[in-house]
């Protein structure tokens, strides 16, 4: 007879082995799924995981990997701080949108002036926009004890309406023949978040994502605030005895999550996307939640998880185009990753026992 026994301490080995096991299980069952669809599973898996990195056109895909992963990593780092402390910001998508609107709005206010200070100002506005949007659930929670999960999630839909309104009204390109969407910032040199070195995919957003990984690592391991965050998540009562002020922590975690999501939105709108449009947001804010958990809420883990997630997107598109796999199959494949992660995660806290034991 099989049974689960709770571990006294979460297993450190399993905590690190879980993501790997989840990836392997996803590859195995994804392969079976592709086989059921009549495709060669080995070719399909190779197309998704190998071709973007080492295939014939890898010179194009490798930089794209950074472009796709950067916003995911940036947002996930911000979210992970809150998640560690048990503060659940589910509305990063909205903070991403508002950050992009603030950044693009700042740029368009200066158009067509060319000046060195425009881009730094956009970075500040983007972060501030995301921060302020996150302050709504934060202050409501601190002041009235509302549930930040609901408030932050609902604000995503408000932000989407705001985005539509901006694309159709205030930020609409006056030379766009009445079509929705702002001017293209790629054609506005002072505001363009261009590649720092051509052909590498490295834009300021990628650089920031790397910097924030290091920042979060130092914060969590070397700073008293990081200690408080971890303590609150692991032992809330002990945290209060240690002098942690919950309200301040809520403000910090949601604010940081919002600011980083806002930054991600701003870098995206000024660079790869180029313009504010009705369908500007593509779900980075939600995917980042998966990335945060896949990376075990650890900065380095998030870095790797973000790159892995980006790989499945890019490889998934190649598989669609070259092998004729339907988009839904790719989404199922990505969903499997989280599913298996959660499933295997049981082993971090529980031990599998054979035979009869004392009733648990």
């Amino acid at each position, binding site marked *: 007879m099989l049974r689960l026994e709770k571990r006294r301490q979460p297993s450190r080995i399993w905590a690190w082995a879980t993501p790997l096991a989840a990836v392997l299980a996803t590859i195995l069952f994804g392969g079976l799924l592709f086989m059921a669809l009549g495709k060669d599973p080995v070719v399909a898996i190779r197309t998704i995981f190998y071709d973007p990195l080492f295939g*014939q*056109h890898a*010179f*194009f*895909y490798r930089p*794209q990997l950074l*472009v*796709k992963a950067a916003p995911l990593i940036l947002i996930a780092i911000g979210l992970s701080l809150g998640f560690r402390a048990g503060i659940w910001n589910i509305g990063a998508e909205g903070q991403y949108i508002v950050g992009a609107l603030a950044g693009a709005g700042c740029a368009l206010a200066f158009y067509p002036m060319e000046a060195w200070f425009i881009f730094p100002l956009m970075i500040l506005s983007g972060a501030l926009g995301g921060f302020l949007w996150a302050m709504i659930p934060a202050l409501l929670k601190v002041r009235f004890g509302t549930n930040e999960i609901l408030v932050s999630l609902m604000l995503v839909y408000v932000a*989407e*309406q705001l985005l*539509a*309104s901006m694309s*159709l*009204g205030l930020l609409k390109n006056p030379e766009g*023949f*009445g*079509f*929705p*969407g702002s001017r*293209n910032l*790629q054609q506005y040199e002072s505001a363009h978040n261009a590649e720092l070195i*051509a*052909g590498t995919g490295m834009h300021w957003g990628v650089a920031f994502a790397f910097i924030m990984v290091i920042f979060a690592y130092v914060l969590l391991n070397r700073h008293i605030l990081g200690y408080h965050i971890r303590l609150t998540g692991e032992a809330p009562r002990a945290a209060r005895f240690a002098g942690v002020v919950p309200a301040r922590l809520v403000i910090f975690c949601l604010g940081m999550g919002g600011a980083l999501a806002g930054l991600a939105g701003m870098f*995206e709108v000024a660079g*790869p*996307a*180029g*313009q504010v*449009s*009705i*369908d*500007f947001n*593509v779900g980075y804010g939600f995917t980042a939640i998966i990335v945060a958990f896949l990376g075990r809420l650890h900065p380095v883990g998030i870095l790797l998880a973000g790159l892995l997630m980006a790989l499945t*997107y*890019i490889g998934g*598109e*190649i598989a*669609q*185009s*070259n092998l*004729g796999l*339907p*988009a*839904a199959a790719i989404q199922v494949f990505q969903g499997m990753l989280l599913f298996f992660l959660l499933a295997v995660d049981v082993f971090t806290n529980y031990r599998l026992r054979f035979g009869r034991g004392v009733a648990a």
Partner: protein
Amino acid sequence: MLKRTFLTTAAVALAMAATGGAALAQEKTKVGFVYVGPIGDGGWTHEHDVGRRAVEEEFGDKVETVYVENVPEGPDAERVMTQMALDGADLIFTTSFGYMDPTINVAKKFPDVKFEHATGYKTAENVGTYSARFYEGRAVQGLIAGEMTESNIIGYIGSYPIPEVIRGINSAYIHAKKVNPDVEFKIVWAFTWFDPAKEADAAKVLIEQGADVILQHTDSTAPQAAAEAAGNVYTFGQASDMAEFAPKPRISSIIDNWAPYYIEQVKAVMDGTWKSEQTWDGIGPGMVGIGEITDAVPAEVKEEALALKDRIASGEYHPFTGPLKKQDGSDWLAEGETADDGTLLGMNFFVEGIEGEIPQ
């Protein structure tokens, strides 16, 4: 700056060398399709995919088609197009308005690949545009709707307030009003092209407000299902025939028929005669089809509708013929005057009699 240009050029040259080699090896003409929705949406993307399959059927072994569905507008679209071009596509159809700037960007990097962008206004040496005069179909639809309504309230599910959609509302309203002076339009903006849940909600709201005919400019069949559940409500298929809801609630439809155009363009690329053009075709050339008018519609109304269709097809009648005033009461078209394409393409006003404002 100079260095950056050089590096980009080098990368592109490398890419061209790679694709050029692939093109020589294969005799087949490779045609790519980028879709904004899933091919099973039953509407917009579905019809483009019908066109793609028609291309395969027409040319058999001489052509290879590839597609990627559910591609978000923005950097993801740019990556998918680049990937198709790298993998040797000779012609790429990009089938959503939001793909405009990405198409232009990618076209710049691949001067030997031809691009056809649907519903946009930017062209280049190797980028042509195509769209259909759906407003011609809307005229026929408006006439039937005006005749069929008993509550004199016609509901309209708008997607986004862009010229394309506004044209459709105006055209439908003008022709409903002609046969039924008491008719009133209620418009709900769904701010989506495809979201069955939102579309169903919009339809239910309109039905509650007394609408007994519903026109939609969104792509799913959810409004049809909502109308069927409500009982005495009529609808029209959008983009696709949606014949599964005939004979009631769906009493007719506007069908996008891209197949002849796609076949023609692929042929032109094969023959080396392709040129960048701006195509805007209607009922006459067959790009816009009117689906079967069912028996739920009285015979004399059906006859009237088909007569209008024939007059539009032959060019004898233009759906926007004066005297027409704008919503604010100012003059637009004098007696007998017809609207020019420029005004139609940028249409951002309602005609007199429609209530409500265009969201800004």
